[in-house]
């Protein structure tokens, strides 16, 4: 039934948690100039995690949104510096809209993680910024996108464009992708310059909002995971740190803040799981995805901010990992529509029919 995590789900969760614990090194993106946690990405590729949502016929895991959400949540817990969510949404787009030939050609490298995919969402601004022209059997893209989230390491881009009055999706490896410095360096953004870049058109015309909904849900799962981890770290810290001769977790001001953080974290997870199951069942998931975004990213910012506060002075040092979480959840909150934007969409659907 819905919301029941099977033993396989639990095993997947443990797998990712274990891999992250041993391999994840988000600091690599702060200390060096790396755009991705290369070692973690390759371990995830070997374990078949990167292509979990790709159909088995194309060497993927044949999993769905529930499995992807579990992975994104665990990666969020570790502030992992890998573009899993965007890559998964891009692969989903190819799987949904590619011809059989395109799927065969494009999905294998995506499933193996040899190609790292970024995705441009079909917002009005993005659709206005890029134009597609036919060029024989191929296509050419022109224009400039100033900001593509978490595409700093992308070698391929999924790009939507107007064609014949419809929104169609194109794949290009020829865009000039320049990484941009970001507050959260584990999700480096990029700008893309399409100087008549070679591209191919995905054959499907059945335009679906699903790539965006999946991406929003996975990004929300990252936020929920980051919040859960910050809460866990903090709840341990408050039993260890003493003031006035007692663990500070003894003080109600601390306890009650922790309790509110717990409510925020569990609400974030519930919202994310709700969206995952809605997507898994193929329902329209627009409201569920907005719910997940509105709750998970907003709550995560509140929870991690509280975690910093409860850590006191140590919480505002570079050395303490909490700021990696703070930057991450703030970036997630701003990236795919702010909580208020998503509440606006929900209000439109409740009030303007």
């Amino acid at each position, binding site marked *: *039934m*819905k*919301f*029941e995590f099977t033993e396989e789900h639990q095993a997947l969760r443990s797998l990712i948690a274990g891999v992250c614990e041993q391999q994840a090194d988000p600091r690599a993106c702060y200390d060096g100039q790396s755009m991705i946690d290369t070692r973690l990405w390759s371990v995830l590729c070997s374990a078949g995690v990167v292509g979990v949502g790709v159909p088995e016929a194309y060497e993927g895991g044949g999993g769905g949104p529930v499995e992807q959400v579990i992975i994104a949540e665990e990666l969020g817990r570790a502030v992992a510096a890998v573009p899993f969510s965007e890559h998964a949404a891009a692969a989903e787009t190819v799987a949904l809209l590619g011809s059989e030939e395109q799927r065969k050609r494009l999905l294998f490298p995506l499933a193996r993680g040899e190609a790292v995919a970024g995705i441009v969402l079909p917002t009005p601004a993005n659709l206005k910024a890029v134009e597609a022209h036919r060029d024989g059997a191929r296509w050419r893209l022109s224009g400039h996108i100033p900001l593509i989230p978490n595409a700093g390491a992308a070698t391929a881009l999924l790009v939507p464009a107007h064609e014949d009055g419809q929104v169609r999706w194109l794949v290009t490896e020829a865009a000039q992708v320049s990484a941009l410095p970001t507050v959260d360096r584990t999700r480096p953004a990029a700008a893309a310059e399409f100087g008549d870049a070679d591209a191919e058109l995905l054959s499907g015309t059945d335009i679906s909002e699903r790539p965006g909904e999946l991406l929003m849900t996975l990004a929300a799962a990252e936020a929920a995971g980051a919040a859960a981890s910050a*809460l866990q770290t903090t*709840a341990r810290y*408050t*039993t260890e740190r003493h003031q006035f001769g*007692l*663990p500070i*977790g*003894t003080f*109600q001001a*601390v*306890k*009650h803040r*922790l*309790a*509110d953080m*717990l*409510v925020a974290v*569990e*609400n974030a*997870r*519930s*919202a994310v*799981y*709700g969206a995952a199951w809605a997507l898994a069942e193929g*329902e*329209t998931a*627009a*409201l569920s995805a907005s*719910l997940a975004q*509105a*709750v998970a990213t907003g709550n995560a910012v509140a929870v991690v901010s509280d975690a910093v506060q409860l850590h006191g002075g140590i919480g505002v040092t570079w050395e303490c990992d909490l700021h990696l979480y703070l930057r991450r959840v703030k970036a997630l909150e701003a990236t795919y529509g702010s909580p*208020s934007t998503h*509440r*606006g969409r*929900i*209000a439109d*659907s*409740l*009030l*303007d*029919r």
Partner: protein
Amino acid sequence: MQQETLAPSGLGELDIDLSEDDAAFAEEWMTWLDTHLPAMHEKLADAGRDADKQALARDWQSQMAAGGWAAITWPLEFGGRAATARQQLIFYLTSAERRVPPLAGRIGINLCGPTLIAHGTSEQQQRFLPPMLDGRHVWCQGFSEPGAGSDLASLRTRGVVDGDSLVITGQKIWTSGAQYADWMFALVRTDPDAPKRRGISFVLVPMTANGIEVRPIRQISGDAGFNEVFLDEVRVPLTNVIGELNGGWNVTRTTLANERAILFMGQQMALTATLRKAITMAKVADPQGVRAADDPHFRDRIAQAWIDVELVRLNGMRNLARVLAGKEPGPEGAMSKLFGQHVEQKLHELALDLGGEFAILDRGAPDAPNRGKWALGWLRTRASTIGGGTSEIQRNVLAERILGQPRDPWADA
């Protein structure tokens, strides 16, 4: 899109497989309701005074008991059905959907009955359960005291053993339904020298006994659902003590966690109904032509209210999935009460606020929003975060039990 998302959670929403037994259970229950419910709805529609309603609630309970529906979680031998979690779920969902009236004696059936079944002697079970089941005896709960709110273990109502009797003197407060009750199950301090939680007994007290006085407490809404109960040398036989003398604290801990996991459905449906009504009214212009639905501030709060109610539902579903899979309830269950009571309070404040300047009007004013019911609901729900454990206590519990924080230094070990 709205229709799907605002619909009350029906059975389909749960996406559970029904076994043959469950399907038969559902079928029997529906058939029984078809036969008995319409007449009761008619009678209730005609009932005026509170006393009439109380009599009807007892009547309904006797019908439900006769059909075997009054206490479905009780074992078969006591007139229950030993219902599975799935059957309880079906029962609660359909009860809400079909507006099955509440039982007069639900406090006894839900709280005292399971305690008697777990801790009572065979004689006590034979004596108290049948009239509790069919509504001849309506029960109230005597736990809270004026000096012992959040700190239940500090209660001071005294029980002194005198021969084979217990002589009880003290005061209980927030006793819901005491004005109609035949019996009260109460916590009484029977050993004043023992540490706080020791020395407490769980005692059954007839409300007709000499020395009992019930005084209604009027709430800020003007309702009087609660009471103070004064006990002045009330004498009950020692056979009315459940479990060991001085062992009452353990008796009360008979856990109702699984039941709670399912009861959330009722809460969520009530919230959904309030939200839906609020949304409907937000789209209608007030006497000055103002529509709340046009105000960005209200649009945002309405969206947040929808989110909150959805979260109550999603939390409940997560917890339910665990319980139905035979696992322990998770943290999302433990936090449901804290979050749910805030959601209820916030939602009623929103409903009131939507009225704009007309929100100040009370029942009887022609332009009072929702005929003054929003104002009443707002006043009533000011108690949501106090009754049944304040939000402060809930937060302590969450931090200590789920997050492993040290207990307050002043709390008992």
